[in-house]
């Protein structure tokens, strides 16, 4: 593995690069908290917490723009190459994934707000909570891998993408069962279904981040053909019976 810990001759250059990486790490911490709080606002039916999550999303958007500005400035003024270039590009792309993650967490919180006015569906909420925790764990693991530049951690997240999909498929079937059994639950179930989709997308962003970490460290793209059952993301239960 190449060692890029040697200092730049122009020290300010190295400082600027480190600053961008630190900003991404900070943004990652914030995104993690947003996921966790969004899930919690749903499971506790806590409207106030949901409002906080919605309000805090603007901070993630601002951080993303800041990272992008710094990266563009660095590219223009320092013309980074090799590891420095990969680090800069990875920071920009990861910041975009984190910003999207924030949007999805906000969306979960918004639906949580709507749900808090409706009749609770405890077992389903617990399923969402379980899926949320799994997704949050993946995001945390991949961000830890980013901060420590540990490729094994990133690969672990990357290769376990199926777990989230399985959760999503199971939840989808569970929701269908409820809706068919009692049409009065359809409104709640639709909200929960969108939540599950949002969480599944957050899982995809964690996978993207794992790919960027791999590229940043090795310079090689991960093979895009991840080991998974189906090529599309249609839940198994939505498919026509054969």
């Amino acid at each position, binding site marked *: 593995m*190449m*060692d*890029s810990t*040697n*200092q*730049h*001759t*122009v020290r300010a*250059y190295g400082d600027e690069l480190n600053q961008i990486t630190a900003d991404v790490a900070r943004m990652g911490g914030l995104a993690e908290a947003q996921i966790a709080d969004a899930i919690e606002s749903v499971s506790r039916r806590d409207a106030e917490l949901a409002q906080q999550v919605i309000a805090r999303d603007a901070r993630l958007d601002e951080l993303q723009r800041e990272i992008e500005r710094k990266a563009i400035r660095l590219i223009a003024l320092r*013309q*980074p*190459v*090799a*590891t*420095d*270039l*990969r680090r800069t590009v990875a920071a920009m792309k990861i910041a975009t994934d984190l910003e999207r993650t924030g949007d999805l967490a906000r969306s979960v919180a918004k639906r949580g707000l709507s749900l808090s006015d409706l009749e609770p569906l405890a077992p389903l909420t617990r399923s969402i909570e379980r899926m949320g925790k799994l997704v949050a764990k993946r995001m945390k693991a991949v961000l830890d891998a980013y901060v420590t530049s540990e490729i094994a951690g990133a690969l672990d997240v990357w290769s376990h993408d199926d777990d989230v999909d399985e959760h999503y498929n199971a939840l989808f079937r569970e929701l269908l069962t409820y809706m068919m059994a009692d049409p009065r639950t359809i409104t709640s179930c639709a909200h929960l279904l969108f939540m599950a989709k949002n969480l599944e997308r957050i899982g995809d962003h964690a996978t993207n981040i794992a790919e960027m970490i791999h590229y940043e460290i*090795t*310079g*090689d793209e991960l093979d895009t053909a991840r080991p998974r059952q189906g090529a599309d993301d249609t839940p198994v239960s939505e498919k026509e019976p054969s």
Partner: protein
Amino acid sequence: MDAPVIDTRPIVAAGPKAPAHGIKVRTRDVSVFYGDKQALSDVSLDMADRAVTALIGPSGCGKSTFLRCLNRMNDTIQGARVEGVIELDGEDVNARAVDPVALRARVGMVFQRPNPFPKSIFENVAYGPRIHGLTTSKSELQDVVEQALRRAGLWDEVADRLDQSGSSLSGGQQQRLVIARAIAVDPEVILMDEPCSALDPIATARIEELIDELRQQYCIVIVTHSMAQAARVSQQTAFFHMGQIVEIGRTDELFTNPKEQRTLDYITGRFG
């Protein structure tokens, strides 16, 4: 130190669909000594035809010494001794039968500072074809001069003042004049030793554009201190350090994902 693995994949000559060309200049285990001092150790490098090979590395790393071996310019330095194999189209350039003057017509050279002869623009370009007896009539010579100046992108600027002194031109024009002089003798290889280091960014861009055009016809080897320039103009890059080649690679790969730590430290501006 381990000898770097020579990348034998074909160099893409011009754009993704252009055909790859063969090896024009091939060196194996080239070492150069100035008296007791060894300036170059066991350099093996293949330079493709119709492609630009850039040699980069810190001052004193041997890249200019290596470049000067390719047309036997080191013969002119007292006490210089060259070992190893240097082949142009498979022929040993250091063989006794090879006339260095004829060799230098096939392997032209452009230096850091433009060095026009103290003669007219026309004579600067006509000199080579005349001494090598490449033309038989005055009108033929005029054609050769015009063609060389056109290919060097200078014709439109000097067509109405060919009898003026070459040194009356701007630095960038002078550099294009000496490139015209080099290509007037119809060489196969053009060596460039920091051709843009004395030029402003606009003159530099014109030379780089010219290099890109000349690449369609020639094997070009360029020594440059500007890594950005190496990245812009070349298809293959060799990184020299302390008289040895550390890494040879496709330019895009070497600048995004170098394989050697010393290459990484050098191109990213770190102290190794």
